[in-house]
């Protein structure tokens, strides 16, 4: 097997892994869009907020400590304890549910029936607000994120040696393929998450109600489904998905502002897959992940590199011109 082919395969594999992470963020978008027609631009900032809250709770940071210190001239920073990862995850989920309630109670309850584009702009405002609150609460410096279930069993990082050796032997190369352990874990967790979401929406009462609301608001309302409750539920689930995405991205590259930019990367994923389809989000994520890595590998060096910044958008743009509803989206029917 020629060397170029071997490298290309490695690029494709890494692209698939990156695509899984994009799909994780895109999943949160799809959930909210299906249930309430809100295109939630703040999903990426929610991931950032969740990851920061998780790290903050884990390290026993005092919330708003910078602000308190600035106002009262004190010097408090930490409570002085460390919280176990699982407990921290549970507490963060609690915070995300609280956030879901607040978003519903103060913002979107009052915007029901507005045009979709107004709702979209409201979520941009929400993104700014949430980012400011996250920075005020936990400080804006880059934080390291570790998830440890017990002493010594943390989220694995670094190269997967077994796969490295295996691929070197199979393809008869001096070096194997580089795959990050974290990416493998992320893939497994993503598969578990999607399975859990599908089970939840197929087999539980709340899941059925969620699907009913997604199908037809008014019909669901008329058979006694509480829209308000379902919307809070959906935002909570999206918050949970954001937490998972935030932990994965945070473990990969540290918890920092650029985390919220992955939300922007999730947008072309959605456009490709269609706003209303969970499988679409996953397939779209994989296509974008593989596409941008391959393009950077094959054509990037010729035109100056760093094409990953825009390739996904341009691909989605070209794709949309031919199929405006995305790969798996429902056909857009317009009436006067």
């Amino acid at each position, binding site marked *: 097997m020629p060397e170029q082919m071997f490298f290309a395969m490695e690029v494709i594999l890494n692209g698939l892994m990156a695509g899984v992470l994009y799909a994780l963020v895109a999943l949160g978008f799809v959930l909210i869009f299906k249930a309430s027609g809100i*295109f939630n631009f703040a999903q990426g900032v929610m991931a950032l907020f969740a990851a920061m809250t998780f790290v903050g709770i884990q390290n026993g940071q005092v919330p708003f400590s*910078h*602000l308190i210190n*600035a*106002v009262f001239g004190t010097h408090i920073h930490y409570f002085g304890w460390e919280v176990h990862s699982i407990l921290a995850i549970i507490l963060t989920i609690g915070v995300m549910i609280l956030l879901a309630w607040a978003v519903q109670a*103060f*913002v979107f309850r*009052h*915007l029901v029936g*507005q045009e*979709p*584009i*107004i709702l*979209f*702009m*409201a979520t*941009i*405002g*929400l*993104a*700014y*607000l*949430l*980012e*400011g*609150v996250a*920075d*005020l609460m936990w400080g*804006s410096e880059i934080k390291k994120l570790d998830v440890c279930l017990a002493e010594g069993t943390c989220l694995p990082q670094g190269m997967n040696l077994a796969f490295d050796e295996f691929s070197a032997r199979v393809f008869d190369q001096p070096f194997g393929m580089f795959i990050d352990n974290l990416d493998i874990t992320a893939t497994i967790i993503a598969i578990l998450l999607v399975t859990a979401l599908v089970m939840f929406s197929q087999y539980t009462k709340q899941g059925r109600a969620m699907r009913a609301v997604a199908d037809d608001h008014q019909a669901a309302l008329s058979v006694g489904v509480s829209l308000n409750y379902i919307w809070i539920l959906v935002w909570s689930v999206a918050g949970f998905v954001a937490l998972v995405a935030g932990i994965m991205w945070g473990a990969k590259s540290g918890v920092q502002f650029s985390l919220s930019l992955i939300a*922007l990367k999730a*947008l*072309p994923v*959605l*456009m490709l897959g269609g706003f209303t389809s969970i499988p679409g989000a996953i397939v779209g994520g994989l296509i974008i992940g593989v596409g941008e890595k391959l393009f950077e590998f094959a054509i990037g060096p010729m*035109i*100056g*590199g*760093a*094409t990953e*910044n*825009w390739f996904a*958008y*341009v691909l*989605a*743009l070209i794709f*949309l*011109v031919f199929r*405006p509803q995305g790969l798996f989206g429902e056909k*857009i029917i*317009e*009436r*006067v």
Partner: protein
Amino acid sequence: MFYREAGDFSTTYPQDSQTFPIRFDRYRYYVVLAVALLVLPFVMTDYLVNSIFLPFLIYAIAAIGLNILTGYCGQVSLGTGGFMAVGAYACYKLMTAFPDVNIFFHVILAGGITALVGTAFGLPSLRIKGFYLAVATLAAQFFLVWLFNKVSWFYNYSASGQINAPERTVFGVPVTGANTDAWATYLFCLVFTVGAALLARNLTRGAVGRQWMAIRDMDIAAEIIGVNPLKAKLTAFAVSSFFVGVSGALFFAVYLGAVEVGEVFGITKSFLVLFMIIIGGLGSIFGSFAGAAFLVVLPVVLKIVGVDMLGWPTDIVAHFQLVIVGALIIVFLRYEPHGIAQLWRVAKEKLRLWPFPH
């Protein structure tokens, strides 16, 4: 008391269809113009011009441009930063390639070039609608910034990758470069801002403006009554990009002087201008000014209150600014979706009947 049409008779059609039909309104407009042209240049200081007036005037042009596209034609764009970069780089290339031509024409030409680029990126809008289009304009934003970063022809192969505005004069007075006077740069930008506002106001009152609004309100219905969506949407993109390009050129040449594209014309700039028109008022020229003024003055006020008076660290004040801007967007969308311009309209209605509202 003053603001009413009673006793104000129109005897000709041009009188009836003028921009400010009410006499008090008209005089108010003349007074504002006179103050801006004849009084402010004499009291202008470097601090005032750099922290408030130049950004206000330049952002007002960009906001008018985006308002034409988003507020009047209903096409949400997140690519404003990218189009401003096109204006800036076009202006730079023209300034260095034709040093003898007056900078005034360079700025106009830069707007024209941006209009061409904007029209090209507007083409997909014929098939893509709503947020699909909003996301598609992100392609313009990221692609253009990348292009200006990577292709060294655009920054004349300079080692730093920056573009620097050389000194250019208007009537012998320098308006770009290092040795400018506050009043000169202020007046230079003011001319463009007033021109842009006049042009935009009259375009949106005319046939093409009515077509844009028809497309915004319901594009299929507009098509059925004979509005050509291809023409309407592309003219909106072209006119909007023209204004955005002019503002980008001024932002680079007059205001900053040196530009690194990723920092200055990034995605945050696109959001900033979008926020200006949401807070100011979608579909209103006055709203573009109000929103630009608000978002230019807010950080200055916050800095004075937070850093200078309360003595807080600058990063906390910056975070507060994010919170306030985000919360304001939500508050405006919730209580007054038409922004400051609508508050102004309501106030005018009240004034008309004041002090006897019945």
